[in-house]
């Protein structure tokens, strides 16, 4: 299970997965589980794409998504590590 601290994290992820037409991320998040390394790489890539796109969205809406994105990264880092996909997370994060 992905250890969200607050429900707004999942809501935000699904909002951006929809915005990016990312069906696999929607599937992973609704399933609440990563099944293999490819999915782990996909979800890590999605996170950093979401960060990039959120900057454009923040400019449009005048909102600030930094804090919720920090909560999500803390949740993701915990989950990738506990589920054995820390390497996939680090590999993608190192490219940022």
């Amino acid at each position, binding site marked *: 299970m992905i250890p969200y601290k607050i429900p707004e994290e999942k809501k935000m992820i699904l909002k951006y997965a929809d915005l990016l037409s990312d069906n696999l991320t929607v599937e992973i998040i609704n399933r609440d589980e990563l099944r293999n390394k490819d999915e782990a790489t996909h979800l890590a890539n999605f996170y950093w794409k979401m*960060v990039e796109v959120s900057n454009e969205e923040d400019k449009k809406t005048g909102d600030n998504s930094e804090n919720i*994105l920090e909560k999500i990264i*803390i949740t993701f880092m915990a989950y990738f590590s506990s589920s054995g996909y820390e390497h996939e997370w680090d590999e993608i994060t190192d490219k940022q």
Partner: protein
Amino acid sequence: MEQFKILTDLRDYIKEIESQKGKILSRPIPEGANPVFYRSCDVAEGTELIHGIQIGDYFFSNCKKWVLPHDQMGLSFSAHWQHLKGIYKLKSKKNEGKSVDVYWVLEDADRPSGLKFVADNDDSRHYFLTVTEKMTVESLVKKLKWVADHMSVIKDGTRAIK
């Protein structure tokens, strides 16, 4: 005051401090922000702040005048390089053009009574600065200010080589 020009400098510097002094807990903070308190421009619209403390970070009483003990709520700190690197990169991407300094404190350093660092049950690389006894919001503010005043900083010099 130390400065890092590339992320591996930061990693090596943290490793050096830890080998000499013990585990450090850190928070990357963008230029202009406070290491422990938030401004309304730092948080999403509608997020409630009381004296710079986010309601969701601590366990507040219904009247919001008191903060109650909770061992899994509090300000977030990174306790491991891999964790800090993720948060640092996020802060950099969300604050384009600004420097992001790393504020840190030793896990075993003195702290005001009623505050304690506790590892996140979901990830031992992440710690909360928790409250261990019921206190007024004003009291928590004073204690957090004390912590902020005693934090060390590693300055972001990455822009120097861009």
